[in-house]
């Protein structure tokens, strides 16, 4: 009951950002899928700017999932950072921590409610939108070239990169250091993790890197939150 009340409060606070992020991916994703549905359009576009170049129209066919990737990455990272700001920076700015923490509940449970909300809000809406787009793309006859299953897993892994940034920004929000000293180190770490992930060809390594990074930051987050002065 108590945990549920906290969870509902957190979800309500994150709701506008879920809608925005899901809307961005859904809109751009739908446009991209629809444009890739007709390779003739891409060919026309190419010929318009390269009138003297000869190219087979089928060479211009690309997977829509490839061009959605950057949008999904940026949205997941943006959502992660935004949620961390909403959950960990704003209560500090508006001095709401004392009201939130003085209740019949230990600090760990308050943090768990926040993190669980963050995880759900990042993975579920973006993941569902991604799954929906992929499902659309796999319908027979929808795209000229069928989508490989690997792209589906890659999309979900991109979404989890938002979690890494979420944890990094949350840690930065709890840090009492100045911004020009160590406050943003956790965000730099998250950025480094994204770089490390980008260089991997095997998806299993991507999973290992993301899970390890998240575990390290979660541990640090609990430590910081339980010991922090508010």
């Amino acid at each position, binding site marked *: 009951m108590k945990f*549920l009340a906290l969870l509902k409060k957190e979800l*309500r606070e994150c709701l506008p950002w879920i809608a925005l992020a899901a809307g961005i991916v859904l809109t751009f994703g739908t446009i991209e899928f629809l444009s890739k549905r007709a390779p003739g359009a891409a060919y026309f576009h190419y010929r318009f700017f390269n009138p003297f170049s000869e190219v087979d129209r089928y060479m211009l066919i690309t997977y829509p999932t490839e061009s959605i990737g950057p949008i999904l990455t940026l949205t997941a990272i943006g959502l992660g950072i935004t949620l961390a700001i909403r959950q960990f920076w704003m209560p500090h700015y508006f001095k709401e921590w004392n009201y939130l923490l*003085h*209740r*019949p509940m*230990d600090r760990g449970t308050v943090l768990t409610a926040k993190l669980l909300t963050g995880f759900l809000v990042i993975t579920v809406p973006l993941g569902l939108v991604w799954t929906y787009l992929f499902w659309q793309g796999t319908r027979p006859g929808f795209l000229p070239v069928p989508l490989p299953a690997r792209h589906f897993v890659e999309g979900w892994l991109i979404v989890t990169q938002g979690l890494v940034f979420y944890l990094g920004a949350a840690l930065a929000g709890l840090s009492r250091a100045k911004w020009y000293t160590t406050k943003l180190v956790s965000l730099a770490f998250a950025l480094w993790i994204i770089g490390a992930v980008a260089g991997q060809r095997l998806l299993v390594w991507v999973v290992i890197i993301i899970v390890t990074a998240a575990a390290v930051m979660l541990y640090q987050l609990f430590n910081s939150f339980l010991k922090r002065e508010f």
Partner: protein
Amino acid sequence: MTDTVLETQGLTKYYGSTLALDNMTVKIPRGCICGFVGRNGSGKTTAIKLLLGFLNPTAGSSMLLGCDSQNLTPALRQRIGYVSEGHRLIRWMTIAEIAKFQSAFFPGQWDGKFFREMIEYFELSKKQKIKHLSTGQRAQVSLALALAPNPELLVMDDPTLGLDAAIRRQFLEGMIRLIMQQGRTILFSSHILGDVERVADRLLVIDKGVIRADCPLEQFRRAVKKVKFVFSQPPPANINLEGLLHCKTNEKELELVLVGTADEKIAEWANSAGAKDYQPVNMNLEDQFIEYTAGPGQKKPFSWEGI
């Protein structure tokens, strides 16, 4: 049940190299309304945050309802109401939503009828959003939220800060009297001495992080005196009078601020110093507080026992 609701022992807090609270040792008995007074930046909020376990002490310890402040269990927090400084609540919620949110944490303890009555008493609408309320209205909602679970101990950090005189009076007289009737222990900090005088029965005076007085209000009112002496010649330079805090000389007049000095001792000194006349100066609590905390070298703790 212990008779001491709140107890600190050598509680000290440094922020970096800045001393915010210095060796605070106090005991607050059950059932009293304790005004915690001090100027802005004197350490009131730091002390309250230490008591509630939001800050870690540099040294010393504090106990609330018999439990160490650093390890307040959820069951114990359930018995402590808290009104934070500035009445920071969840801004996007309406009054009805925040009441529902708060009540979820106090199953079987939340008095919804009492909350509704208080909101009606303050002439607020339950549909109003917290972010659209004035500071005074937020204070009223804060108080209603803190009182509705019927806490044993209520800690309020400057609850009347930023309220206009009328709302302050309404806030204090209406609600604190209600609290008094129900026999709760209240600790409330303030720098508005009039508020404290109106409702408190015990006084904690803090100045520059040091607790300067911890006694019943009436005792403080009796003990801190200002006496004006008139001399036919310039007054003596050396004043050897027990309880002297500070003095002010003006040609042939001398004003002494004393604490705990018996009237007989004052009369004796006036005779021995050759004063032509002397009379006590009337002071309200604010004057007494200012005189008591003014002047150099006033860091020495004064023993309030036996005054």
